[in-house]
C-alpha cells in the first residue's frame, strides 16, 4: 500500500462522489417534500443518459451542451410520471408507493431494452482523453468537470429552494402540507414541480457523466442503490447532508477498493448505511433522536 495509490483513490473517490451527490440530491428532495421513496430513481438517470447519448452521437452536440436538452426533458419526464402514477398514491401506505416505483423501474428498464436493445453504449467525446498529472496522481478532466458541475448544480438548487417563491412553497409543502395549503399554496402542483426538479437533477448528472460513463438499460440499478445509501447517510430530506454524504460514499467506495479485497468495500458501504439507520436515522447532520 503506497501513498500515491491512496492519493489516486482519494481523487477518484472525490470526483465520483460529487456525481453520486448530485444524483442523491434529486432523491432526497423528492423524499423530503412528499415522503416518497422512489425506487425508479436510477431509471430516470438511465433515461437522461440515453437522451444525452443520442444528442451527442446523432445530433453531434458537445456533451456539456446536452444539458440544454436533458434538463428540460427530465423535468418533463419526471412531472409526467408524477402526474400519471405517483400523484394517485400520495396518501397510500408507504409500501404501496415503494412497490409502485419498483413496478415503474421494471417498466422503464425493459422499455429501454425493447427500444435500444441491451447494447452497452459509449459516446465518443474529445474530453475522454484530457488527463493531467500532478505528481503521480492523474486528474481526469471529464470527472473534474462532473464534480465541479455537480457542486454548481447543487448550489443553484440550494439557492432556488432558499431564496425564491417557488423554493419557499416547496419547503412549506414539505414541512406541513396542510398548513401550506391553508396559506394558499397549491400543494399538488408544488409536489409536481418538486418531482420535476428532482428528476431534472438526474438530467444534469446524465450530461456530466456521458463523457466518461456507459449507457445501458440497467445502468441505473447501481446508481439508484447508491443514492439510497447516500440519502440515509445525509439524513432523509437533508440537502447539504446528501452533498457531503455523496462525497463520503464516493471516497469509501474508492478507498475501500484500494484497501479491501474485491467487492467487500461495498459491504462496508451497506454496513455504514444500516448503522446510520439504526443509531442515527437523522443522518450526519441530524440531531440525535430522543
Amino acid at each position: 500500500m503506497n501513498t500515491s495509490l491512496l492519493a489516486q483513490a482519494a481523487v477518484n473517490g472525490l470526483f465520483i462522489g460529487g456525481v453520486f451527490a448530485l444524483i442523491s440530491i434529486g432523491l432526497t428532495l423528492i423524499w423530503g417534500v412528499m415522503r416518497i421513496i422512489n425506487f425508479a430513481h436510477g431509471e430516470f438517470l438511465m433515461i437522461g443518459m440515453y437522451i444525452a447519448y443520442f444528442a451527442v452521437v446523432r445530433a453531434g452536440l458537445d456533451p456539456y451542451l446536452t444539458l440544454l436538452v436533458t434538463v428540460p426533458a427530465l423535468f418533463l419526464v419526471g412531472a409526467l410520471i408524477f402526474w400519471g402514477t405517483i400523484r394517485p398514491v400520495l396518501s397510500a401506505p408507504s409500501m404501496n408507493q415503494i412497490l409502485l416505483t419498483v413496478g415503474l423501474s421494471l417498466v422503464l428498464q425493459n422499455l429501454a431494452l425493447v427500444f435500444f436493445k441491451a447494447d452497452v453504449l459509449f459516446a465518443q467525446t474529445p474530453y475522454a482523453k484530457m488527463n493531467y498529472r500532478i505528481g503521480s496522481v492523474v486528474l481526469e478532466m471529464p470527472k473534474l468537470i462532473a464534480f465541479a458541475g455537480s457542486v454548481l448544480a447543487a448550489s443553484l438548487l440550494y439557492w432556488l429552494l432558499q431564496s425564491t417563491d417557488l423554493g419557499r412553497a416547496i419547503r412549506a409543502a414539505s414541512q406541513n402540507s396542510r398548513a401550506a395549503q391553508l396559506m394558499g399554496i397549491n400543494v399538488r402542483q408544488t409536489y409536481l414541480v418538486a418531482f420535476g426538479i428532482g428528476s431534472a437533477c438526474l438530467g444534469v448528472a446524465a450530461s456530466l457523466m456521458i463523457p466518461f460513463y456507459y449507457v445501458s438499460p440497467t445502468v441505473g440499478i447501481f446508481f439508484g442503490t447508491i443514492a439510497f445509501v447516500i440519502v440515509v447517510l445525509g439524513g432523509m430530506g437533508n440537502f447539504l447532508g446528501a452533498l457531503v454524504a455523496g462525497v463520503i460514499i464516493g471516497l469509501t467506495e474508492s478507498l475501500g477498493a484500494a484497501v479491501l479485497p474485491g467487492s467487500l468495500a461495498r459491504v462496508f458501504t451497506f454496513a455504514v448505511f444500516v448503522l446510520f439507520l439504526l443509531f442515527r436515522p437523522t443522518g450526519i447532520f441530524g440531531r440525535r433522536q430522543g
Partner: protein
Amino acid sequence: MRTNRWLLALSVLLCIALTSCGAPSAGPGQPKTIKVGALYPLSGELAQIGDNVRNGLVLAVEDINAAGGIRSMGGAKIELVFGDTQGKPDVGVSEVDRLVQQEGVVAIIGCYQSAVTIPATQEAERLQVPFIVDIAVANKITERGFRWVFRVGPKADSYAADQVAFLKDLPSLGGPEIRKVALLHEDTDWGQSTAEAQKRFLKEAGIEVLTEVTYPANAADLTTEVSKAAATNPDAILTVTYLNDAVLITQAREKLGLKNILFMDTAGGTIDPEYIQRLGSAADGMLTVVEFSKFAKGSAELNERYRARFGEDMTGNSVHSYQAGLVLADALERAGTTEKNALRDAIARTDMSGEKVVLPSGRVQFGEDGQNRFARLYVVQIQKGELMPVWPPAVATAKIQFGQ
C-alpha cells in the same frame, strides 16, 4: 370464506387454460421441422452478450436450412425455439422444462453463463434430453459424469492453460520474460472460475502471482483497482472482464501510463466490437486469448456473412454457438431420427473436421465426459483497432508489439 371457492374456481380455470395452450406434438416418423431449444440471457444485464451468442446460432440454422436441411430426414428444417434465462439460474431451469415439455424440442443449445448452465444442464440430464453447451467456462459443467451434456467450447482450464503457454512463449516472440503477474478480475462466477484456473496453471509454470484484485462488474470507476494491481510491479496483468469494466480498465491503463505492463484479457469485454469502437487507439496493445479471429485462415468469409446479417463482427461467443448448431445438424444427419437416445449417441460420436469446423482447433470430438477434446485458443493483440492473431505462431498474421 368466499375466497376458498374463488381459489378453487380459479385453479380449475387455470388448468383448462394450461391444457388448452399446449402446442400440438409432432407426430412420429419424419417431421417437417425439428425443434431445437436456444437458451440465452436475452434480458437482464447480460442481454447484449446473450443476443450476440444467439445470433451465431441463428446464422448456423439459416445456413443449414438453406443448404437443404437435414437430408437424412427428408430435408427437415431446423426451427429454433428461444428461451430467455434472464441471467437467472432458476429461470434457466424453468426454461429447460418449458422447452422440453411444452415445446417438445429435441435438444437444447445454450446458455453462456456458467451459473445458469450448471443447473440447466442438470435439469436436461434429469429429463434425458441432449444439451449442447456452446460456450460457458466453468470446468464443472463437463466434470459431473453426465450422459446428456456436451460442451463445444473450452473450459476455464483451457483459457488459463493457453494464457500461461503464451506467457512462457513470449521470449521467443521477442518479448520479455514473465516472472510475476497480477490478477485483476470481476467477481462473479466468470471471474472467479477463470482466476482459480489461472492460479493453478501459473503455479505449475512457476510464475508468481503477486496479488489478486477483484471488483464488482458494475463498478463506476476502476482506476483504483488498476493502480492497486500495478503497484505490485508485475510483468503482466491478467484480467477477466465484461464489457464496461474492460473499458474502464483500459482507460485507467492509459491514464496511469502503464504501457510497459502487458495486459492480457480472457476473451471478455475486449473482444466485444463495442470495446474497440469506444476506445479507439487507447485499446491498442491489449492482448487477449480468444476463440475466433476473422483474420485467421478460412474465417473471413463466415465473418462477412455474419456481418452482413447482423451488422457487427463475429466474436468468440457467436462462433461457438455457430459451431454448436453445426454439431447438432451433423448429429441429426447421422442419427436420421429425432429419437433422443439415438440423437444423444450420435452427438457423442461426433467427429468433425475440415470446413464444417470454424473453431481454431479445426476439429470437434467429444471425450467420455462430453467435453470437446480439441479446444484451442488464439492470442490476439489489438493493433490499429483490429484483433490481430499473434499466437500460436502457426496462425499468427501479425507480430506482437511491446511497450506502446
